[in-house]
């Protein structure tokens, strides 16, 4: 980044560009979350399972986000790793109601964190324990236990419970992410 860019960044003239990778198993609510983060007039009404991936851009006061909404279906999960290099932050979405597949989510997270393009980097990881509204959902504390998040030592991470359909809990996570990126 050139001096001029930095200057304009400080002055708030040009917004800082951030690539965010949104990952998680299929049906965890990634697309629903990203849809909620978009301005009200740009939101889609019905959400279908993502094929491959979608790219969404949106801005807030200081940052300009490019979000890669990846498909979580197992046959597309091998696409994830091609975007690790360019990304600055990761949002990992978990369906708190799907206890059976918590092991699969953990397996994918472990594979992700040990990938050579992610391993040594100090990029922030935001976890959404989504679908908190479901009757049999487990708490975000339990989710972080099941995924052994306490073992992540080289990266800043944060978990928050969310309900993507009503948009609850999303802003808290985003604020944390913004803070991390600004540092």
């Amino acid at each position, binding site marked *: 980044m050139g001096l001029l860019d930095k200057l304009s960044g400080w002055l708030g003239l040009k917004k800082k560009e951030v690539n965010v990778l949104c990952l998680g198993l299929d049906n965890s609510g990634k697309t629903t979350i990203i849809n909620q983060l978009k301005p009200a007039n740009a939101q889609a009404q019905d959400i279908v399972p993502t094929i491959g991936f979608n790219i969404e851009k949106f801005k807030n006061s200081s940052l300009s986000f490019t979000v890669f909404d990846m498909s979580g279906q*197992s046959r597309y*999960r091998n696409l994830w790793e091609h975007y690790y290099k360019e990304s600055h932050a990761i949002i990992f979405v978990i369906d708190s109601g799907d*206890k*059976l*597949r*918590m*092991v*699969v989510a953990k*397996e994918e997270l472990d594979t992700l964190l040990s990938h050579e393009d992610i391993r040594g980097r100090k990029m922030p990881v935001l976890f959404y324990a989504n679908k908190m509204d479901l009757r*049999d959902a487990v708490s975000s504390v339990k989710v972080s236990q099941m995924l052994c998040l306490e073992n992540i030592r080289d990266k800043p991470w944060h978990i928050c419970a969310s309900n993507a359909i009503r948009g609850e809990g999303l802003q808290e996570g985003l604020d944390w992410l913004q803070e991390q990126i600004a540092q």
Partner: protein
Amino acid sequence: MSESSGNGGKWLDAHYDPVAGLFTFSPCVDLADLSGDGESRLVVGDLGSGSTGMKLKVFRGTALLSESTLLDLPAGLVAFFMDLHEPRIPAVAVASGPCVYVYKNLRPYFKFTLPGLEVNSLEQDVWQQAREGQIDPLTLKEMLESIRKKADVPLSMRSLRFLSLETDDMDDFVQLHKQQPIRRQTVITCIGTLKKSTADDDGVSCLVIGTESSDVYVLDPEAFVILSKMSLPAAPTMMDVTGQFDVEFRITVACRDGNIYVLRRELDKPKYCIKLSSHPVGLVRVGKNVMVGCTDESLQGFTQKGKKLWRTVLAAPITTMAAMDLPTRGFQAVLVGLANCEVQLYRDKNLLSTIKTPDVVTSICFGRYGREDGTLIMTTKGGGLMVKILKRTAVFDDRDGAPGPPLAQSVRLNVPKKTKLYVDQTLRERENGLAMHRAFQMDLSRMRLTAAKAYVKALESSLAPVSSSISEPLKMNAVVQGLGPSFKLTLNVQNTAACRPATNLAISFLYDEGLYRMRNPYMRIPLLVPGLVYPVETSVECTSDKGISDIIKVFVLHEGRSCPLLTAHINMPVSEGEMLN
């Protein structure tokens, strides 16, 4: 939840509840999207304690979603599409006793009862008389007994029950039942599904049921009428169905006579028969082949026409078997539950991987559960429920532990070109084959004759080092030690008789006196106890320094007999001692 070492690194432990209270076997377990939301549920026919607590249970994820009581012990359970209504939600058919109970949206929907079997007319007459009061229960019993003994049509359940009663209870029983018509029912032993006319995953399917009366019925999915009836030589126990009813189908049935029969469309008798050496306990089709697990702890592969392909021996008796079919990865194999708390995965005869389980597995079901395609569901002897998910990155290697031919075997050898000489020889051999064979046979016979002659001569003149005479069976060998000019000669003499000792024996030597000098060329042998080896030693001096050697002949003699018992020729070595000087 962490990965356990017993999975060979291929499976994730998604769930294990050792006290789920599920007692079932593979035919009573199925996976189906019962609510049409893309999430498959686990449907289980729970046998309970065997007499009470039979239930139809549905699981979603790790939780029990619903359960409903079953009236009778389930023999099998299948989920199938019975109509074309949207949303596409499958029905569940539970076979128990003579009935198939069909559930839709988990509510009882229809009950199909197998047609009654032919009733013995004599039996019917006898009950008719009982109803009219012409005979008393004791006479009824006598007459039924005699019918049971000779009739070719067996008695109905009612008569059999009656015959087992005490005299006091008979009257009440007759009063209670005499008005009802007699019926004879068979029971269902196995159930399967057969696509009606399309091969689509959500195509409408017919039910296929096997009965104790050795029949196989195909039922129409909408009207529940019998579309086809086929007969087997014995009662079926396990069944695999493929194809479409309207096009072509194949029903592979394992029967209680230890054979496997293959039924085809438009034939009411089996087309092929596979005879097994021991009873089948598991039957799984993989592609076009059938894999059969037998009670002799073996797994065998057959083509669909019944040709045996291979057989492997397993480490323990088989408890259950199921297919592992993963169409998204084009992977097909068979899972075999063993009594030693292992579940083994076989592709053909190759063992791909082994899963260790905390308890003996009694049922296995592989398929889509929840949103995960590769889910393995197992229930255990103690009533536990175990769910494992195949890792996305898992690959199964055929060479995994299974010893096969070494790779080098398939490397082509660099065989040199045929030379002209080789070709000529081949031609010659081809043309004169007969003559060459004759010449060879002739020479062979001659050689045999020469050998036999020499042997006879040796025996006659006792030239052999083994004496075959019945009175003195002896054996001898000789060892020469030393470099010369003095040698040590050791003769090991053994009496080979069973118990008789040999007496009055002597040894003498015959040699060229110009060459050798011997200390005592005549020795007496002590009494020879049977079995022991007696070393007799003497020394020989070579008197010549010309570097020549000769033969020394040894005779074992019996006192008072002129013919020696044994003869041995010792080839003396050249004396090196003189030459060294």
